[in-house]
């Protein structure tokens, strides 16, 4: 009866394999340099070690948060897109209203200056 | 005129609003005019209504005035309505009448107080609540007045809140009253739950059909109602607030102790007499508590040196009498004593107030004495009141007290024991009252020179109410003469329609077992004799004792034997009777009263505080501990649901 779980198993295997291939390729064909920055876990982004009190640019988080929001709102477009023909005009208007609501949010953000760096 | 019943309570309310909202901006003359005028008017109105009621047939002497439907939801209907019947008529007369005199008296007494208008505003509000209480035609409205009275007592007792003792006393009065109210409310709920109505007349007529005679439910209801009465009318064990209540201005004590507040409990029991008649056990409890309180408080009164405290304990004891009367199912006797007591107790307090006024706020009797010649009017009126409360024949107190004693002895639900207790209490009362008189008005003057120089009789506005009350204290009892004196007991007849329902329910309770009048004569004489002896003893121990030294000298110089013997007699009395009693009463006061009963009531408060302190630790302020509590709750709830 376990055959029903094979797809899941296959998913796991695939994930592992792909990860291996990725790192493997980088090991084989990537050329190596033993220089300061290269040895750190992240060569870009926040310094992993150092004073935690160091002020972090809040804008960074702001954008991240806003991204989550707009990104998630978009999922409502998918079910609409699937049956948009069946919904017809009504569905279209509904979706326009929805997008307008999102836009109001967007304008508010603009006015509030949340998207301006410095 | 009967359509103006509602004006009786409303007028004082208007007075309250005027004085309360003006906030000291009005001149004192206007304030006092408004306050006294409003209640004076409602007194006049009460008198008129009384006579209109009297004109009616005894059977038809019930006037209900529905102002508006108050709450009506589903099966639950309560009207905002007033009820005027012989009982409430008596009550409004007493409340407005005595209240009016106290208002007038206060004009003089409080004349120098900064909170003048605030005082009169409270006083009017107090009267208003009390009138609502006695005129209410249903439990709910009565409860409104009931709470209002409690609130005003809180405000008035704590009137001089600069004194910590005063504001504490106010708080104590309030909290203790709440305990009583708890009982009252639950009792009311039970009545409503089983009768389906809160209207007094409906309850009276329906109750006998729904409650089994002497059943558990009705007994429980009555006992709960009685708990309410205990709280308001200061019976054991909830009397503790009353002696402290004298922290307020003296007229307020007079108002609380005489006309209003404490009488509410007695009135409520008389009003719900049908219910109590249905529950003989509850009646018995009422009688026992009443008798016990009467004796207990009287005994404590023997050793107090604060003039107002003596009177306070005396009030508690007299209220015990009233409950004893109700307990032996002779409600009219209870109300009768309520009325006469209102007269002479108000007089006593006002007199004491006048004394304190003259003594520049000295309340300790040991620092008084010989005030007789300085305050003649006060002395005369005070003496009359004392004679009345001691039950000297001919004065009001005698008739009411005698009726209670006789009923407690004779009636079926009474018992000789009750009579004995009442009898002893009568003696003690006479003793401590005359002790008070002798210590205050006779003997040498023990006050310091400064006070002495300022001694003065009180102004007219204070003495006139005293005289009026003195008159009432004398004649007030004549409306209720016992039958054996050949007179008709008008008072009893007047009230009989109110209590007829109850008597119909429980005819057995009222039958007097020993109807023979010779016995009644005998008991009457016995009590009078006891009273006289008590007065004589007081005379010896608080007036003559001071001159014992001189008596000694005379003895040595070979004075007449009789005097000597008499002297021995006194010593004998002192050693055998009075001293033990005094030590006993000291014990009661210091140990039982202050330590045990007070302790219990304060203790319960601390217990709650400790629980609170303990629970507070749970609110650590840490979100994770909150989440843990939350999750535990979830687990318990889910487990509970899974069991199903």
């Amino acid at each position, binding site marked *: 009866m376990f055959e029903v779980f094979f797809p899941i198993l296959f998913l796991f295997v695939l994930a592992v394999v792909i990860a291996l291939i990725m790192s493997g390729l980088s090991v084989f064909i990537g050329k190596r340099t033993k220089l300061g920055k290269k040895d750190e876990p992240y060569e870009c982004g926040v310094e992993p070690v150092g004073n935690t009190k160091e002020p972090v640019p*809040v804008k960074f988080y702001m954008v991240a948060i806003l991204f989550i*929001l707009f990104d998630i709102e978009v*999922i409502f477009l998918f079910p609409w897109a699937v049956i948009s023909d069946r919904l017809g005009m009504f569905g279209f208007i509904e979706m326009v209203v929805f997008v307008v609501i999102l836009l109001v949010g967007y304008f508010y953000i603009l006015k509030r200056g949340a998207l301006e760096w410095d | 005129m009967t359509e103006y019943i509602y004006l009786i309570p409303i007028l004082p309310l208007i007075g309250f609003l005027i004085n309360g909202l003006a906030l000291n901006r009005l001149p004192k003359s206007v304030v006092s005019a408004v306050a006294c005028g409003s209640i004076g008017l409602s007194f006049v109105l009460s008198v008129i209504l009384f006579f209109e009621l009297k004109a009616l047939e005894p059977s038809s002497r019930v006037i209900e005035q529905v102002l508006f439907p108050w709450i009506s939801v589903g099966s639950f209907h309560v009207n905002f309505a007033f009820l005027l019947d012989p009982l409430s008529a008596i009550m409004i007369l007493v409340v407005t009448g005595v209240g009016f005199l106290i208002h007038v008296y206060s004009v003089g007494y409080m004349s120098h107080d900064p909170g003048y208008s605030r005082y009169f505003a409270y006083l009017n509000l107090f009267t208003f609540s009390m009138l609502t209480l006695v005129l209410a035609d249903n439990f709910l409205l009565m409860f409104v007045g009931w709470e209002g009275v409690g609130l005003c007592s809180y405000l008035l007792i704590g009137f001089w809140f600069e004194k910590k003792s005063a504001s504490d006393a106010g708080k104590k009065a309030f909290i203790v009253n709440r305990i009583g109210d708890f009982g009252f409310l639950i009792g009311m709920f039970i009545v409503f739950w089983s009768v389906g109505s809160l209207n007094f007349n409906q309850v009276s007529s329906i109750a006998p059909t729904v409650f089994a005679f002497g059943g558990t439910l009705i007994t429980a209801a009555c006992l709960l109602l009685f708990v309410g009465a205990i709280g308001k009318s200061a019976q054991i064990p909830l009397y503790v607030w009353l002696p402290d209540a004298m922290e307020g201005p003296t007229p307020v004590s007079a108002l609380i102790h005489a006309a209003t507040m404490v009488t509410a409990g007695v009135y409520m029991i008389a009003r719900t007499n049908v219910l109590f008649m249905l529950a003989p056990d509850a009646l018995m409890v009422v009688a026992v508590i009443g008798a016990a309180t009467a004796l207990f408080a009287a005994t404590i009164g023997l050793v107090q040196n604060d003039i107002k405290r003596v009177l306070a304990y005396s009030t508690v004891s007299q209220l015990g009498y009233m409950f004893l009367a109700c307990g032996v199912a002779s409600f009219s006797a209870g109300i009768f004593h309520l009325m006469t007591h209102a007269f002479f107790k108000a007089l006593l307090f006002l007199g004491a107030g006048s004394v304190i006024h003259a003594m520049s706020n000295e309340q300790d009797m040991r620092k008084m004495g010989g005030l007789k010649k300085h305050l003649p009017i006060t002395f005369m009126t005070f003496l009359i009141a004392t004679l009345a409360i001691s039950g000297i024949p001919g004065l009001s107190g005698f008739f009411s007290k005698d009726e209670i004693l006789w009923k407690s002895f004779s009636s079926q639900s009474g018992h000789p024991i009750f009579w004995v207790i009442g009898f002893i209490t009568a003696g003690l009362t006479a003793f401590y009252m005359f002790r008070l008189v002798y210590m205050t008005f006779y003997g040498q003057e023990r006050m310091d020179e400064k006070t002495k120089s300022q001694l003065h009789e009180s102004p007219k506005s204070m003495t006139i109410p005293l005289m009026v009350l003195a008159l009432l204290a004398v004649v007030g009892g004549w409306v209720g003469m016992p039958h054996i004196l050949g007179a008709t007991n008008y008072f009893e007849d007047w009230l009989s329609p109110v209590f007829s329902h109850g008597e119909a329910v429980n005819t057995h309770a009222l039958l007097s077992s020993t109807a023979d009048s010779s016995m009644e004569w005998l008991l009457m004489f016995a009590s009078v004799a006891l009273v006289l002896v008590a007065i004589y003893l007081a005379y010896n121990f608080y007036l003559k004792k001071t001159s014992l030294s001189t008596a000694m000298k005379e003895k040595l110089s070979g004075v007449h034997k009789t005097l000597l013997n008499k002297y021995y007699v006194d010593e004998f009395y002192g050693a055998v009777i009075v001293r033990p009693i005094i030590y006993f009463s000291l014990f009661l006061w210091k140990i039982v009263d202050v330590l045990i009963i007070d302790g219990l009531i304060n203790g319960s408060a601390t217990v709650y505080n400790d629980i609170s302190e303990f629970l507070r630790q749970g*609110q650590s302020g840490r979100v994770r501990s909150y989440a843990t509590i939350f999750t535990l709750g979830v687990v318990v709830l889910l487990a509970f649901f899974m069991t199903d």
Partner: protein
Amino acid sequence: MTVPIDAYLVVGAGLFGIGVIGVLVSRNLIILLMSVELMLNAANLALIAFSRALNLMDGHAFVFLVLTIAAAEASVGLAMVITLYRNHDTVNIDRFSILKW
């Protein structure tokens, strides 16, 4: 023959439990937020599983709504965390206990 619904529900319950434990034990606000999100998604999984079992579409529709709500909560939470960090220089939840008793 498909995967029995119980399997999905067990996984969902497991995720939910992990989320609860996470809320109870983690001191770091961010991890705490993630745990809450985990709980919500566990509920989503249950919804999907049920609507598959009863083959109704309602469940799927609800999941969309829940996702949006989760996103809204997450963003508000993150914003609060930022404010807290600026005022307190820490995101250790145990430090925030000036309001108590």
